[in-house]
């Protein structure tokens, strides 16, 4: 087991390196010269050349990449051209906010998705099933950020039940944090819930028709015990895969949802960097996001190797 883990972990290294190389090269395609930007107006040619040298821009691309990489593995992603803030510090400040949001959305997606998936599988091809199917295909088609706007206009501005914007850390004040988290989590999690419900339904219908479930029924187990304990355990492996795919999607979707709720997460950071053409910040964020996705995929891979001995 330990060898398998280490082997899989080692296999990630080339993937991560390739991803970082792709992002690095992409950023090199950007027009303009950061040393001219940094030198400001009326700078002399010597001054610009000096900055170019200090940034290492006079060396070959491969050298530049290796320098960047050697700094990056030590946690130094460079400085923002616009704000001069350390990029690692900016990501460290904004990433926990985004992760809290993604966590909230995952809870919403899993709770509602599993309940809806189980309900429609147990009542397959009935009116309940049809209603859940229509609601979830509508949910899957709705842009998360639009759902966020609608929720804000109803529950925050209309009914005044929940705050419209802002963010509070769960560690600082759990009650206020949850109040701030509800609307963005629902907005982000709705699409995931729809996807989990749709896929879980298919998996469960298959399982509920299988021989071991028939045996359990013959033994006289209650239907809800069969569904919630035995069938759902059988569905665990595909369920974990679906949830893993949702994490990647949520990390992307949160970018726009943060803008709706005025949350200063990593999405807001990358969007303002992209609008200001602050390329190094964009580079740092994309690499960190890719790293998270690769690690989540790794966790999913390992978890089903552990839960299903046949694929070990």
């Amino acid at each position, binding site marked *: 087991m330990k060898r398998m883990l280490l082997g899989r972990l080692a296999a990630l290294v080339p993937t991560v390196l390739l991803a970082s190389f792709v992002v690095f090269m*992409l950023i090199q*395609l950007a027009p303009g010269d950061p040393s001219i930007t940094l030198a400001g107006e009326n700078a002399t040619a010597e001054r610009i050349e000096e900055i170019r040298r200090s940034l290492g821009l006079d060396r070959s691309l491969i050298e530049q990449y290796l320098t960047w990489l050697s700094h990056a593995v030590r946690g130094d992603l460079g400085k923002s051209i616009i704000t001069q803030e350390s990029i690692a510090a900016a990501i460290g400040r904004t990433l926990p906010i985004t992760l809290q949001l993604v966590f909230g959305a995952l809870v919403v997606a899993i709770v509602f998705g599993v309940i809806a998936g189980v309900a429609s599988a147990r009542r397959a091809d009935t009116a309940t099933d049809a209603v859940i199917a229509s609601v979830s295909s509508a949910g899957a088609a709705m*842009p998360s*950020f*639009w759902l966020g*706007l609608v929720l804000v*206009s109803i529950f925050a*501005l209309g009914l005044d039940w929940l705050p419209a914007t802002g963010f509070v850390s769960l560690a600082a004040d759990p009650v206020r944090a949850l109040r701030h988290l509800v609307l963005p989590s629902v907005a982000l999690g709705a699409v995931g819930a729809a996807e989990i419900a749709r896929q879980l339904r298919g998996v469960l219908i298959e399982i509920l028709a299988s021989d071991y479930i028939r045996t359990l029924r013959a033994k006289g187990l209650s239907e809800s015990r069969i569904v919630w304990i035995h069938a759902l355990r059988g569905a665990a492996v595909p369920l974990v895969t679906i949830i893993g795919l949702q994490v990647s999607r949520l990390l992307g979707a949160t970018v726009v949802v943060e803008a709706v709720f005025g949350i200063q997460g990593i999405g807001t950071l990358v969007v303002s960097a992209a609008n200001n*053409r602050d390329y190094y910040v964009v580079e740092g964020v*994309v690499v960190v996001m890719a790293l998270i996705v690769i690690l989540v995929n790794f966790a999913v891979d390992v978890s089903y190797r552990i839960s299903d001995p046949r694929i070990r």
Partner: protein
Amino acid sequence: MSGGGVLRNWLLSDGRSRLAASFLLAVAILAIAAPLVARYSPTAQNAMPFTGISWDHWLGTDDLGRDVWARLVYGARASLLAAFIAVGIAVGIGVPIGLVAGFRGGWVDAVLMRIVDTFLSFPGIILAIAITAVLGSGLMNAMVAVGIVFSPSIARLMRGQVLVTRERGYVEAAVSFGSPSWWIVVRHIVPNAIQPVVIQATFMLGLAVLAEASLSFVGLGVQYPNPSFGVMLRSAAQFTSLNPGGVYPPGLAIALLVLAFNALGDSLRDVLSPATSTRRRIGRRANRRPAPNPEPNGASPRDN
């Protein structure tokens, strides 16, 4: 079955696909005929802000007194155009890569698929934002970015199909007759491998509408003062307390477009390749090791 026969059967067999196709056709006609159906310019101030629904302004006016209906039909133009450009680019990049990887095999396949997998490890919208940052904002650049982001999954799908098709008897027969490779690819492989790509591209049109809206919403897509659904949501979002209804027209338009493209994709899949329709594919996956990329032929035993 001939192409026309498939099309006729499909439209006759399924009420949902008929509804989706008619809706999309109606939107396309409105978008093309925008100057005729909109009575005002989409960018000019025509009245007081937030007049509400009236005979003069069917959907009211926005924060700058522009006619919302006019902006909606011109916005549909931008959104549909954006979707087709993005998916066209994705197919244009993805199909040749998948074709070469699947047909050539060996190290070419290994290298290409490694690159494809790398691109798949970025969250799509974040990669699109990064590419847009490099290219500069604007509708065309944003859609090039979305097209690039979509292309790896098309390449993977195409490669899987080519691997399957390559083993078919008619391809082996053509090889043994001594037909040149390009002829085999054009005559036998592409026509038989392309169907799942067409289905996937239909779903992607919906995703591209969402992507345009997202990028324009954060200011990287369509630029002020031109309308698109994302731009309209962006300005409506700033005035939700003054005009809470403002978010509904563009938001519903996006949701309905996406729903229509999804319904069209679903029914196309049922007609073109019944073996991979949703229900049965999920059933099969339940009994197998689930692959992170759940396409039917993503992981054949001959991988690499």
